[in-house]
């Protein structure tokens, strides 16, 4: 059998590895100096677009500038973000079915903790969603807390029933992106541009979009934790 590589002695291999490591350290040091110089030469307070946002905040329907930018001024970016989340989940689903569930009883802590935490966490998520209009919060934060609820339930041994998994799961996954697209289409049909909210109804539109986005994000994150296409019971 032909040997594909000349056999190297142990010291040669070690010396080569040391050389590569030194080269890597040198390159990283150069990059670090460049980054440090770039960061330190930035102005201390860069206003950016904050003045433009502050000027138009009243027409956006919310009083939290972050939420206004995310769901109103740059709503198209958030629409694409929801699409990216959905694509990530589809990628995980394309890799295979969910791992088989082994019969194991959760320990005492895992048995008790979800019972206490789930209701509290749902309330916290609702509060974060509502509060996003005028304080730090919003759809992604509330959605990730709700997703943590799903993860807790899955860890404690709950598995969604087969009936839930076929159609309702898919509807919930698509609802966030779908609401964005439907709202954009409705606004276009009303004569405005894509996702240009009328200032009078902007608050209500933002709340509606954020609520569906929260649900979608939560179920997407919990499905990511499930680890594969959920077993719907139908034998393939």
């Amino acid at each position, binding site marked *: 059998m032909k040997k594909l590589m000349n056999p190297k002695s142990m010291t040669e291999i070690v010396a080569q590895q040391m050389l590569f490591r030194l080269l890597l350290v040198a390159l990283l040091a150069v990059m670090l100096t460049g980054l440090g110089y770039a960061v330190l030469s930035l102005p201390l307070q860069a206003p950016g677009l904050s003045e433009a946002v502050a000027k138009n905040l009243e027409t956006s329907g919310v009083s939290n500038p972050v939420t206004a930018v995310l769901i109103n001024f740059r709503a198209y970016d958030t629409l694409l973000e929801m699409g990216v989340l959905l694509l990530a989940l589809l990628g995980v689903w394309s890799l295979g079915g969910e*791992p088989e569930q082994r019969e194991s009883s959760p320990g005492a802590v895992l048995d008790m903790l979800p019972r206490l935490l789930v209701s509290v966490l749902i309330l916290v998520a609702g509060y*974060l969603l509502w509060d996003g209009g005028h304080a730090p919060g919003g759809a*992604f934060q509330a959605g*990730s807390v709700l997703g*943590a609820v799903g*993860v807790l339930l899955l860890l404690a041994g709950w598995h969604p029933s087969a009936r839930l998994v076929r159609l309702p799961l898919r509807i919930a996954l698509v609802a966030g992106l779908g609401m964005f697209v439907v709202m954009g289409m409705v606004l276009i049909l009303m004569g405005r541009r894509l996702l240009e909210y009328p200032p009078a109804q902007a608050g209500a539109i933002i709340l509606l979009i954020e609520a569906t986005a929260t649900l979608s994000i939560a179920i997407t994150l919990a499905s990511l934790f499930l680890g594969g296409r959920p077993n719907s019971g139908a034998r393939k």
Partner: protein
Amino acid sequence: MEAVTVDAVSMFETVTMLHWAFDAVLGFALLWLAWLALTSQDLFKAIVLFIAFGLLMALAWVRLDAPDIALAEAAIGAGLTGALLLSALARLKSKHNTRADHEKVDESEVHD
């Protein structure tokens, strides 16, 4: 009256110095946790260090006046990504165990 204004100035300087000290400790802790997480041999330990890093990163976002990102980082970066990594580690280990069992079975057949 002059004594009162001097006290106010020195208190303001103390608070600013406390901020600087806190930021320095936070930055150093972030770098150190990242290094530990990257170079630890045990994968479980690395994941736990990554979760701790995520929590400190959320503190850093708060210090940078970005509370929304801090909330998202704590929930997604530390919480959900940590849970996903642990679940992936568990699946890797179970796969490794079943492959080791299969190899043992094959060896016993060969020896027979």
